[in-house]
């Protein structure tokens, strides 16, 4: 079952930018794209642990700031020649507020 938690206002994240949400099992990066879509990913590049929240956002992709791995934020999959996947979380925007699914964040911690 989905249990939505109100995280913040959409405008708290700049377009083509990200902010971090701290959770017990690590940081989650919440991205806002140019077209106001919101994505939540583990804030940890599978390559060398780079903070994806600090990367450059373009289209629905983000580039890791450490070694330029590019991830599709819809799937969390590394693009091009790189192989790897970063965990994604369900996020939604409603009436200008951003929500994350609490049950997902918990399940992740139990696993």
């Amino acid at each position, binding site marked *: 079952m989905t249990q939505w938690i109100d995280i913040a206002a959409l405008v*708290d994240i700049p377009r*083509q930018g990200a902010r*971090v949400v*701290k959770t017990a099992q690590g*940081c989650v990066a919440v991205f806002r794209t140019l077209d106001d879509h919101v994505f939540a990913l583990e804030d940890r590049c599978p390559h060398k642990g780079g*903070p994806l929240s600090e990367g450059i956002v373009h*289209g629905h992709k983000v*580039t890791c*700031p450490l070694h330029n791995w590019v991830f599709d934020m819809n799937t969390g999959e590394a693009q091009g020649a790189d192989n790897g996947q970063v965990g994604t979380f369900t996020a939604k925007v409603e009436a200008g507020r951003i929500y994350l699914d609490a049950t997902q*964040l918990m399940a992740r911690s139990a696993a």
Partner: protein
Amino acid sequence: MKKKLVVIGAGMASGRMLEHLFEANADYDVTLFNAEPRGNYNRLMLSPVLSGEKTYEQIVTHDDAWYAENGVTCRFGEKVTGIDRDRKVVIGENGEVAYDKLVIGTGSNPFIIPLPGHDLKGVIPYRDLEDTQSMMDLGAKPGSKAVVIGGGLLGLEAAAGMAARGVEVTVVHIMGHLMERQLDEAAGYLLRKSLGEKGIKVMCKANSKEILADENGHVRALLLDDGTELPCDLLVMAVGIRPNTKLGAEAGLAVGKGIHVDDQMVTSDPDILSLGECVEHNGAIFGLVAPLYDQARVLANTLMGIEDAFKNKEVSTKLKVTGCDLFSAGDFAEGEGREDIVFRDPARGVYKRLILQGNKVIGAVMYGDTADGAWFYNHIKEGTDVAEMRDTLIFGPAYQGGAAADPLSAVAALPADAEICGCNGVCKGKIVDAINGGATTLDGVRATTKASNSCGTCTGLVEQVLAVTLGEDFVMPTSQPICKCSDHTHEDVRRLIKAQELKSMPAVFQELAWKTVDGCHVCRPALNYYLLADWPLDYQDDPQSRFINERKHANIQKDGTFSVVPRMWGGMTTSDELRAIADVVDKFKIPTVHVTGGQRIDLLGVKGEDLPEVWSDLNKAGMVSGHAYSKGLRTVKTCVGKDHCRFGTQDSTGLGINLEKALWGSWTPHKVKLAVSGCPRNCAEATCKDIGVVCVDSGYEIGIAGAAGMDVKETEAFHKAASEEEVLEYVQAVMQLYRENAKYLDRIYKWVNKVGLDWVKEQVADEANRKALVERFLISQSVYQKDPWAEHVEKEQARYTPMANLMMEAAE
């Protein structure tokens, strides 16, 4: 006996509903109330009335004869003051009317921003014929000015209409681009450009603060929160509408954003129905006409006992401004599993974007050529499977299998007088003439026109002019494009940004036919640099297009922590500064302190969220950012010079400090490191820097293009200066030349290697040119020479902290 139907509001939706009833000879006796002293006219056509393309008479949809013919009792100019649901009567100013069925079509009210001064004379919305008349009257007065707040559909139509009548119009819009609900950024850019050509000034990201009055209580000007005053004789507020739910709410109907209706358009009272801009259906409210006409049909059918249901469908939008051809339909946001097909033709100012999900078109945005809009809209509505025609879909129905986009179109679009070669002042027309005169190779063009004969950065453009002029007879040499988003090289992009005066990211994307919507991590930082270097006063630096280090003003380390390096002018420091640094290290438990090769102190391992506090403490001790993270001026290293050293010939420390004070804060294609040595023993290692000064008895030897990184290279002699002032002038001039011409991420030595030291020397040796370079450098410094730490401590704290902390919730 006929049933009694009362309709409140003679608008477009209720008008259409009555047409359906009468066409079907429905058994109703109709009484129609309208607060405006007239019947139904086509509100959508107010804009053509305003611009003079139509008259009021031409937009009346139902005249007196029509009402008479259909036996409608008209109570126009009479307000309804209440509804008594128990007695089933509508209470008008001139008496009551009983109903069996009641239809509420009270429409919407324009939203007026409660700015100070919103109730002044001369401040109007754009809603009805009276407002339109006020705007038309303004056009009759020569030299009159108007301000429109709101860059949406209505605001722009108001602006264009007044401009067509000779009024000087400024549109003030709070968002980043015009019509942001219907258009994406690229189409918004083109729209803004077309409006500019009509003489309409557009200000985006502009916040209104106050409406100023003259001595008669009439509007005089709009004041923005940045202090700009926009004088005006009329201020039109077109920022949106709100459903007019007053009557419904007072009668106790269920009301949210609008009056709640079900699929049959029935409110919470089974005998009261509602439609139009005053209703809320499944959480949606309505402002465009297409769904209102659907509601009208459904409501009429419900009244006649015919089963029907309203379903909210995708709608399309067109702007009714002559010469601004735009079309938008469906959902054009990016999303999971969605793909874009983008087509840009800079030569014709055309932009088309289709949004596909699976094999279906779900949205379309078009500008400049909207002929195929209806065809795409149809595919959106029908949910057509477009797999078969996907490759050529964007070209529309006529071009299944049509020509591919032309990467040369940006060059083809340049006017004949556009400058191609900046060094020798050669315009496109001259090159074309030379080609037509027989110079059909690059060398031929160079020999006859001198274009691309000096620094060579325009070579790619000259080749493209050759290709455009000669067609297939010219074989293009292959060159490396900036990234996968574009076919242009860095050099071409730089020259085109200057030649076409492109001053924003969307302008570059459109005019240079970018293949992606918002670029990528390779091109965006380069473009951001080119734009801010070429247009310091026009372009707004975009932090989201910068690499993390420049966005957070600190160096990211492999573990995600940051390093902090305060500036120490010329490598000099004091006991107070050292004490403040020591305090910061203790207070924030910074694990590593390192002395750098550039004579600075590096604090490593600072947590991202501590950065603002660390900076704040360092700021308090008088220290500013050392820009150790930037593609910009890094450090000026010095030796102690003649004050202390027995060999010193000049005040190398003082000169180093002066150079650093002049250059700090400037953004450059790559990092720039300087050094000043007080004598040829060169303790400051000035001969392997980007720019190095070695003091001698007779003056100052300036060298440039040294390197001590991946490549090691000694500087080359650039100029011998007689005074410190001369050193400063030459160094600032060469910095600016580098800033204006080099490819992003080329250090000075790489750039000099490409353009030749002689060319650089020539440019700076010419006195007029040198002074102009320095002047442009100073203009840029007036914008960018500021301490980013202080600025971020003051305004950007939020960027550094987590947006939320769920540690507690997750632990429970």
